[in-house]
């Protein structure tokens, strides 16, 4: 991990975003499954982390610190919604297409996105949280249990079922890859 004492506050904020924005937004996108919500929550995550930066003592654990904030915000958002929101194709395609993308590449991307959407939709909220905390934060399962408030056995069970579900739905992508 990089040093936590950069030259200026702006540098530190910029470094945080460069190092962790992809992971934080990716996590949020996977859990809330809506691009505009993910953008908003990512901004809120960094803002809160920035406000509490003086109290933050766990040096070298920035990613985990940010992911915990993002996880709480995502859960709050899902609770407020009270229901699972379907990820619409436009939201999933929020990423600007690369200029050098060929039409068939765009089509591939669209099809892949559709499969990913279906795979994500098949996962429960807890399965998504467990798998994505493991992927983006490389949390130990015990830490995931602590963050989610679930027993370790339950976390392992969610992880296993989630992986099985992904394998079933992403087999074609795996083969194409």
């Amino acid at each position, binding site marked *: 991990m990089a040093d936590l004492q950069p030259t200026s506050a702006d540098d530190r*904020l910029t470094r945080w975003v460069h190092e962790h924005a992809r992971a934080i937004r990716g996590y949020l996108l*996977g859990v809330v499954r809506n691009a505009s919500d993910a953008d908003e929550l990512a901004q809120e995550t960094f803002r809160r982390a920035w406000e509490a930066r003086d109290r933050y003592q766990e040096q070298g654990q920035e990613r985990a610190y940010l992911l915990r904030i993002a996880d709480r915000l995502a859960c709050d958002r899902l609770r407020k919604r009270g229901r699972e929101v379907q990820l619409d194709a436009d939201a999933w395609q929020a990423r600007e297409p690369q200029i050098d993308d060929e039409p068939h590449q765009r089509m591939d991307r669209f099809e892949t996105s559709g499969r990913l959407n279906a795979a994500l939709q098949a996962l429960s909220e807890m399965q998504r949280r467990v798998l994505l905390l493991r992927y983006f934060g490389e949390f130990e399962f015990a830490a995931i249990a602590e963050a989610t408030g679930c027993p370790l056995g339950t976390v392992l069970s969610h992880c296993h079922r989630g*992986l099985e579900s992904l394998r079933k739905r992403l087999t074609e992508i795996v083969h194409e890859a």
Partner: protein
Amino acid sequence: MKPELEELESRLRAATSRQAADLDAETASLRDGFLILGGRLEDETSVRDELRLISALRDVHSAEAVSVKKATDASSRDLGPMLVFLATLAAALLVSASIAWNVFYGTPAIRNPIAQPEPHKKTEGTTVIAEETSPAEEPLLAWDDSLEETFVSAQWRVRQAGSLTSAADTEVESLYDRIQSVAEELDPASL
């Protein structure tokens, strides 16, 4: 922890590890789906998204800095009337304390400004034992005299009382002399 749980954790740890490792076919197939999902989600955030996020955070940061400055200015402005009020209150208390001091510890003239001391009357055959005080000599006291002025006035009155006593003593001595001379005149022996 139960052995089967430990085994499951170990297997899942390998299936969800981002570092390549020697895995059995079953675990490897689980890991493929996991890596594809995470990788695609990560790729959804472009450089443009990062820049937009940095810009938004800077806007929030600068807006907060401005709001903190405004709040500080506003709080200092709010203190102005409070300071004026406190100063007025302190002045009023000081004046009240001064009046109270004069009422309870001041001279009788001040305690009862209406009752004026009677002027000394001249009587036949007697000399005036004290000069009337001239208004210019006696310190004048008013309702807003300071404590120091009250003390000066009190000292002046004490001195005046002392001078009255010494004048009376002189008069008694002269009377005594005159009585002595009359007694000598009436003494038969001297006749």
